[in-house]
């Protein structure tokens, strides 16, 4: 659990929406590719028109007053503040870490973000700048973002990140193998990475923009969860289509159903393209009304984003003072 405690939301006692695992729930042991294939093909299909319509309807929810204030703080505490550029330097990472710890120095009660997300070679730098805080260090690995490298290289990449102190590893699945139907290969790779992670949490990036269909997203979600993912993550942020509301809806349905049938709660990370408070709050509504309140927690839901934080900070100030602050009041990074 991330040490940052989100602003307390009003407690709903005995919430009916909380997921209750069915009696005898357990994670099935995958013994063969054939078994895995039939398991994934046995999942219900997704009607794309219906899924889009459901997401669009949830996007009309209107969060006001106390709910909005609490939701903004919750969203802040769920951000994986990310920099994944070829031009990343220790200086850039250190300024990002400062921002992660104290996003808004003029408003000291602003919650810290959940994690800082960097490439493996900058994990040690990030770790050093976050000593003494509850902000975690997440590292992408496994030949991010394409994943086009041998298994050995990917595992070394992971080992490197973990050795440098990464608390969380964001791996990419082999989309080529998935689309070619070599599901066993994809599964085995996630299992191997899971092992290489040791105590670090594993986020499995599905790269939904390359899987394209919701049916694929649902199957890939289950594959990753069966292989031991702690989180399933929409995208790398490096392709044309990243997180979308309906894709995230489909993934949240997957973690809800997985929790019910296995008793294991897996998190969801929506990454790429979420830039405004308005969008972020829509995601929280979808979380709330799909997976349920248990997922309204940085331990089970994250935003992979960079510019989102500043908009959250501006909207947070607006909620408190009633007026919009100039964009220069928040730090540029």
């Amino acid at each position, binding site marked *: 659990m991330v040490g940052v405690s989100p602003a307390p*939301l009003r407690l709903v006692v005995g*919430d009916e929406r909380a997921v209750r695992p069915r009696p005898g729930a357990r994670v099935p042991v995958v013994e063969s590719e054939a078994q895995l294939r039939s398991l994934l093909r046995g999942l219900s*299909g997704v009607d794309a028109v219906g899924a889009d319509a*459901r997401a669009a309807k949830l996007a009309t929810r209107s*969060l006001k007053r*106390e709910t909005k204030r609490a939701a903004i703080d919750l969203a802040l505490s769920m951000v994986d503040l990310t920099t994944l550029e070829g031009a990343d330097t220790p200086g850039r990472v250190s300024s990002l870490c400062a921002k992660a710890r104290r996003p808004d120095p003029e408003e000291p009660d602003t919650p810290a973000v959940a994690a800082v997300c960097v490439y493996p070679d900058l994990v040690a730098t990030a770790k050093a700048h976050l000593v003494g805080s509850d902000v975690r260090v997440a590292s992408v690995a496994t030949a991010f973002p394409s994943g086009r490298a041998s298994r050995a290289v990917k595992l070394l990449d992971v080992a490197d990140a973990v050795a440098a102190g990464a608390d969380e590893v964001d791996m990419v699945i082999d989309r080529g193998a998935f689309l070619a139907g070599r599901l066993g290969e994809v599964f085995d790779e996630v299992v191997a990475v899971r092992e290489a992670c040791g105590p670090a949490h594993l986020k499995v990036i599905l790269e939904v923009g390359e899987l394209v269909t919701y049916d694929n997203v649902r199957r890939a979600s289950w594959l990753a969860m069966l292989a031991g993912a702690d989180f399933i993550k929409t995208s790398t942020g490096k392709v044309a289509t990243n997180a979308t509301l309906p894709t995230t809806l489909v993934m949240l349905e997957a973690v809800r159903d997985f929790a019910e049938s296995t008793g294991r709660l897996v998190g969801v990370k929506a990454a790429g393209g979420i830039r405004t408070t308005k969008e972020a709050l829509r995601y929280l509504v979808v979380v709330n009304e799909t997976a349920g*309140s248990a997922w309204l927690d940085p331990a089970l839901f994250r935003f992979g984003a960079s510019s989102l934080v500043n908009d959250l900070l501006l909207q947070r100030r607006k909620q408190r003072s009633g007026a919009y602050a100039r964009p220069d009041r928040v730090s540029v990074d």
Partner: protein
Amino acid sequence: MDDRPASTVSALEYDPAPESAAVARLRESYGLFVGGAFVEAADGATFETLNPATEEPLARVAQAGEADVVAAVAAARRAYDKVWRKTTGPQRSKYLFRIARLIQERSRELAVLESLDNGKPIRESRDLDVPLAAAHFFYYAGWADKLDHAGFGPDPRPLGVAGQIIPWNFPLLMAAWKLAPALAAGNTCVLKPAETTPLSVLVLAEILQQAELPDGVVNVVTGDGSAGAALVASPVDKVAFTGSTEVGKVIQRRLAGRGTRLTLELGGKGANIVFDDAPIDEVVEGIVDGIFFNQGHVCCAGSRLLVQESVAEEVLHRLRRRVDQLRVGDPLDKNTDVGAINSAAQLEKIRELTDWGEREGATRYTSPCALPERGYWFAPTVFTEVAQTHRIAREEVFGPVLSVLTFRTPEEAVAKANNTTYGLACGVWSEKGSRTLWVAERLRAGVVWANTYNRFDPASPFGGVRESGFGREGGRHGLEAYLDV
């Protein structure tokens, strides 16, 4: 994860997000719209329309008597003979486009007014009723100058004066369904809105004035059933009625032998058929949209869920979870999913039929949602273990009440779906296209939705068979009801 404290179960409990009632610009009283002007009833009679969510009066509205209906029909006749029959298609198009745009311009006012008078959630009036009403005018505006190409031969003629009686479930939208094709085809109209929901149609009348529609082309007579009866008895060339099967039959009897054209859109007992290979999450949404949309006050509501026995347990588990989530309450709150029942009488009818459901042995599941103290409310309800013989499986409840039946084979699904006196709408849920088509062509219903429910489009004809009525509204087919063909 493992070290999460178990006690932090919290939920986003949405604070009230009400739309402002002032937007509706309510007035104390509303008159009849006859010959292009708002007038009082000849005998000065009025009635009160209530806000069903609070039981408080909204406004007083003129009660049309026989003399008023006669005057309205005479105004429509004059307008037909002197003006409207002589207009060209492009001229009628121009008026219809104007009306459509004005509905869009005043959409917020119309949406709030509709929710106040009807009790439906603002999300639905804002996102469905009002945009669809505008869409119908836009659609038929496009037909007005293309009637030669509608498939009814060259230069099809209008019928003359149409008497149109509409229900309370979609007041503005039903007015648009009736007026747009009638005007496009060159008819003039006398429209009678339902007694409990006259207000949005009267604002539409204001819009017609704004659009400078010639006087008398559309007239609105408000009032109870007696005004409707007077309209049916008057010398109109066409009667179009949407409402209950009971009243539809009375109208058909009254018009027998008179040569007046008639189209009826009546009740329904729609079956939503779910096969074991259906996309389950979307199925649950489709069931909810099918029966809880507009509080179930929908003639084509999917009030019977026919679910394949092999997936019944799974579907019902998910459905109950979803029903619990429905937010019932203030229609003006933007986060409300299910609003108020339209009237005390309707609430009484729903209660009577659901009591019968229990008495006849079905198992009742009611959403645990809290209901407001004042107003007319009915919590979303699902009956399982319903048999074909039960009243809740045969009669139209017209409320947020779902009856669940199971089937084993496609043949049985079709047989059960067709085992009703109605025939308005059905839904089929399956990922297998060939099965969907096989079922669809055997269903005796005017509308069959595949992997969706309660989806409307002005280009798509809508209407029933058997006791759900005859005639089509919407699409090219909708023109036929107003042309002498």
